[in-house]
């Protein structure tokens, strides 16, 4: 990525999109097959936010496939960021906030890797990351914005942003560079075999991310018929022609949450927080062995999380509809 320009030329962006097969075709495949669409060195954008609608099943598949040198971007990064660092799949995460979650304190794994310069946490403001995806989604090279000025957050990325005097008002305005990830991983409640996806509840930055990326892998709680999608077209949020792979992965965010279906697996997350705090090297390694490298399959991974935990998370998840 280092030698590529910060913002793709319009010709390069259009050429990449032109060469994608955007016809209405079925794209259903396994996690392992989808992982082959991700190449070492790719910029990979991760859907969801913190512990919500994280595409854990694809994270799991990429770590098992021993990918290397991925540049990761996400709105807010939680345990999956720890595991990308610990597995050496990525040494560079672009995000606004990086830690398991407020209630678990500062990530010792993030601290170990960044403070020892083993990996880079590139910090942008939350809205700036969102606007960078949005510019990418819109096919424009930059988005004007009014934050990161004055602060050291802006100074840290001063070579990547431009500050100009607005030609209309004379005011100072930031130009944020468009972000067009090589590939986006997004988990949804349902989509059809073509990739028409319907997302319930919180959308985070996923729609812009899907439109901005040069490839999209959808994991989904279930694959529904195209007829079902066509019954409520105003609930479709991601159109099929942005999508390159559809993988059915039930509980595909576990131990994170998926809106309306399951809340976070809190006991499991407490366990991860505990072992990774005790030893930020051996803790995550042990966790990776047990939950990532060890299981034979995704259902086997879920079995290791435990039936009790799964039912409890589901009961809490569905409760959002109790009214």
């Amino acid at each position, binding site marked *: 990525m280092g030698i590529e320009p910060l913002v793709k030329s319009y010709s390069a962006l259009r050429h990449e999109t032109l060469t994608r097969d955007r016809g209405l075709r079925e794209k259903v495949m396994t996690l392992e097959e989808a992982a082959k669409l991700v190449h070492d060195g790719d910029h990979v954008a991760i859907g969801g936010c913190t512990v919500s609608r994280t595409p854990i099943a694809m994270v799991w598949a990429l770590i098992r496939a021993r990918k290397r040198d991925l540049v990761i971007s996400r709105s807010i990064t939680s345990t999956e960021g720890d595991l990308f660092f610990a597995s050496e799949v990525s040494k560079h995460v672009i995000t606004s906030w990086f830690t398991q979650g407020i209630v678990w304190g500062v*990530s010792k794994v993030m601290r170990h890797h*960044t403070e020892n310069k083993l990996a880079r946490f590139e910090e942008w403001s939350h809205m700036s990351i969102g606007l960078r995806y949005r510019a990418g989604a819109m096919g424009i090279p930059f988005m004007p914005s009014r934050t990161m*000025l004055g602060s050291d957050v802006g100074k840290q990325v001063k070579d990547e942003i431009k500050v100009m005097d607005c030609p209309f008002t004379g005011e100072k305005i*930031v130009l944020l560079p468009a972000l067009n990830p090589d590939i986006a991983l997004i988990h949804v409640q349902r989509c059809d075999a073509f990739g028409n996806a319907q997302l319930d509840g919180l959308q985070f930055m996923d729609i812009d991310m899907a439109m901005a990326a040069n490839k999209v892998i959808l994991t989904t709680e279930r694959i529904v018929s195209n007829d079902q999608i066509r019954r409520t077209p105003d609930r479709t949020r991601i159109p099929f022609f942005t999508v390159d792979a559809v993988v059915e992965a039930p509980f595909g965010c576990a131990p994170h949450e998926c809106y309306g279906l399951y809340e*976070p697996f809190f006991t499991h997350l407490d366990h991860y927080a505990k072992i990774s705090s005790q030893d930020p090297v051996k803790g995550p390694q042990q966790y990776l062995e047990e939950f990532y490298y060890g299981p034979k399959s995704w259902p086997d991974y879920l079995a290791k999380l435990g039936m009790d935990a799964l039912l409890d998370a589901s009961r809490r998840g569905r409760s*959002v509809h109790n009214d």
Partner: protein
Amino acid sequence: MTKHTKPSSTFTTSELLAVMASRLMTNGQVVFAGIGVPLLAATLAQRLFAPQLTILFEGGTIGPFIVPGELPPSTNEQRCTRRSNMVLPITDVLLLLQRGYVDIGFMGGAQIDRFGNLNSSFIGDAENPKIRLPGTGGGNDISSLTNMIVAMKHEKRRFVADVDFITSPGWLKGGGTRKDSGLPQGGMWRVVTDLAIMGFDDETRQMKVLGLHHGVTREQVQENTGFELKFDGKIETTAPPRADELAVLRELDPRALYTA
């Protein structure tokens, strides 16, 4: 609307922060609230005297109804949307700040300086930090675009002359420096601690004490602050938390997850 009930002498630091901060809210405001004390304070205001106050969450929620005992652990979880008026993408909820629909941004702080700048990124030098903190999240955006209330514990190591790293801009170097940097709107308005309530001088933009909590002295506040504090001409003493205020807080957080 406020019921006048007797002061209560038993409360935790977080409860004190939540009560004091809640009293800074005004009915009809739109408040961008973080998890923990900010959310508790805004909800408390809503229940006691500001029924038309609207809460926004960074995760993408407008006007949620907080269910007692089910406080969300982050602003990005489905609990945040429970019986809300609207759910929208993160970028769009943050853009409401930029467009100007928000009156108050309200968050916690790890380190603050005399001009109200907040640091949640690095302890020590950013190139070789002693501690890498989680970073800005929406903090930089919120504090760049609206008027801020920060609630935090009053400790010398947290109240420093100059923060190691400006994650969320306050008044920068004071005077007109914030405006000159390209941030003409918003700014740090109030800092609520377990000892005092502080504002900022209109000219110099230096932090100054506006009120002391019941039983707290000026000296005590200064001792717990890493720079020379200004004191307003007329310092008020805040009324201690009332039983009705604490009752609401304890109903909202019965297991004291955020108020312990």
